[in-house]
């Protein structure tokens, strides 16, 4: 008889709905066919994907796969290295990042960056946070004080340091320094924050604080975070991109990357089978 058995189709309504929502979110970065070379050494190979606005995008992958390079390309900090060549394009809010006419000062003010190793300046706590507003023209002492207080409060550091704002920032603990660096970055009022392994130099408690902070910050900022810590990526990010040898293997919603990756290499990596 010719009646085929109909395969039962499972429709996960919630998942589809969420997928549609996340797809409808605006893109902050549209990365197209991005390749990058350090001299003759290719570090990125034809990366294409979009970073969503007001979400946390995690970048994972084994050491040397190009995560930091990718992150630094988004605000063109990578050009501080000599002999860097790029191909492809990154569109940030309708602006081509590689356009020679792009004003790097504006670009980097809009796209903040937090480094792996906390790098406070050899200045007071106050002056660290006030540095950004000052170089962008804020002179008013009262305004500066307000900004410093606001930013330090937002990273949860205010109560810890409010009585010692004139102490050297280098006297803070590593975790405090990292939160200070985040506050310093917020003081410039960026739209995007790039974070390169922001917790890898921190103890678990400080890490947890920074993680919570990231979750709070995504209300206001689009965040791209590089991490080696799978649990962290799973906890804090909405989307995850898995890099391998300079290529983007898979990019998807974080829950799918971790529960149902499409590529065997992603699966091996997130289950800890290599890397």
């Amino acid at each position, binding site marked *: 008889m010719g009646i085929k058995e109909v395969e039962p189709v499972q429709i996960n309504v919630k998942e589809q709905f969420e997928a549609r929502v996340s797809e409808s979110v605006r893109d902050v970065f549209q990365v197209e066919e991005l390749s990058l070379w350090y001299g003759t050494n290719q570090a990125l190979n034809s990366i294409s994907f979009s970073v969503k606005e007001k979400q946390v995008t995690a970048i994972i992958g084994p050491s040397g796969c190009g995560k930091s390079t990718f992150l630094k390309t988004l605000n063109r900090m990578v050009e501080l290295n000599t002999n860097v060549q790029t191909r492809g394009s990154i569109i940030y809010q309708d602006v081509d990042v590689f356009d020679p006419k792009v004003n790097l000062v504006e670009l*980097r003010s809009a796209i903040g960056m937090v480094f792996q190793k906390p790098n406070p300046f050899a200045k007071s706590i106050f002056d660290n946070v006030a540095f950004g507003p000052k170089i962008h023209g804020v002179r008013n002492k009262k305004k500066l004080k307000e900004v410093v207080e606001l930013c330090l409060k937002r990273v949860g550091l205010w109560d810890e340091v409010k009585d010692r704002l004139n102490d050297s920032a280098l006297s803070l603990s590593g975790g405090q320094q990292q939160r200070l660096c985040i506050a310093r970055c917020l003081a410039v009022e960026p739209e995007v924050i790039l974070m390169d392994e922001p917790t890898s130099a921190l103890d678990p408690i400080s890490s947890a604080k920074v993680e919570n902070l990231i979750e709070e910050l995504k209300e206001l900022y689009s965040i791209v975070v590089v991490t080696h810590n799978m649990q962290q990526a799973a906890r804090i990010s909405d989307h995850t991109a898995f890099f391998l040898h300079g290529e983007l293997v898979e990019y998807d919603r974080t829950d799918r990357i971790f529960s149902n990756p499409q590529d065997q290499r992603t699966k091996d990596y997130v289950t800890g089978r290599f890397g």
Partner: protein
Amino acid sequence: MTNAALTKKKRYTQSLWVTVCSLFTAITVGTLLFLFYWIVVGGAEVISWSFITQMPEQNMTAGGIWPALVGTVYVSLLTIAISVPLGIGAAIYLNEYAKQGRLVRLIRLSIRNLSGVPSIVYGLFGLGLFAATFGFGRSLIAAALTLAIMVLPWVITGAEEALKAVPRSFREGGLALGATRWQMIRQLVLPSAIPGMATGSILGLARAAGETAPIILTGAAYYLPIIPHDIKEQFMALPYHLYILATQHSETATVRPIAYGTALVLILLVILLNSVAIFIRNYYRRKNEWL
């Protein structure tokens, strides 16, 4: 040869070398101490407040060394005022702005080589360029310009080292916040580099203060018991004064004590400058954890 014999031989060689090296060190330090002792003993007799603050008298056989001391201080200060801004500017350009490549390497190599050029050559150069061509004549300014050119390699190299010692993370942090290159250099790099630059500059100053050949050619006077009031005037200077007293004077035996006194003052001046440099370096090294 057995293993034991081999190690024995090795140990023997080693102890031989240690002995030789200690001996050489002892000779060096010994010579230095002896020299210093000799000058202190000879100079202590004449040195006094009035020796330092009085004009030389009776054809330099009596009186003090005031104009020579002032002349040396003036010419050194002028030298620093000229060479430090130039040198630090050059270092900032080379280290922060210039595209690192063959040209910059060549420039650096030339600068290093210039520091090995004999000072008499600088003297002739200064005489030709500053005294003659620029029309400054033999004067404070011609001598200071000459000395400035001479210490420039030291100042540049010192300043470059100081800039290199500033962590990359400061620069990255600054630029990532949207600072311009100059804001970053001015507010983040220079404050951390200034101690190192100061050290290099003071060491250059110490060298300039003790130089004789270039200033003889470009402006130091044999005997001029007045304090210069203008940078186009000639001046007396400690090292030249010493040279004259020791070798050119008609009564070298009579003025020998004054020569010792002059040498002592000059050495103390140079030691003082070097100590200031070392003090600054140590002070900031303790203060800046990243150095």
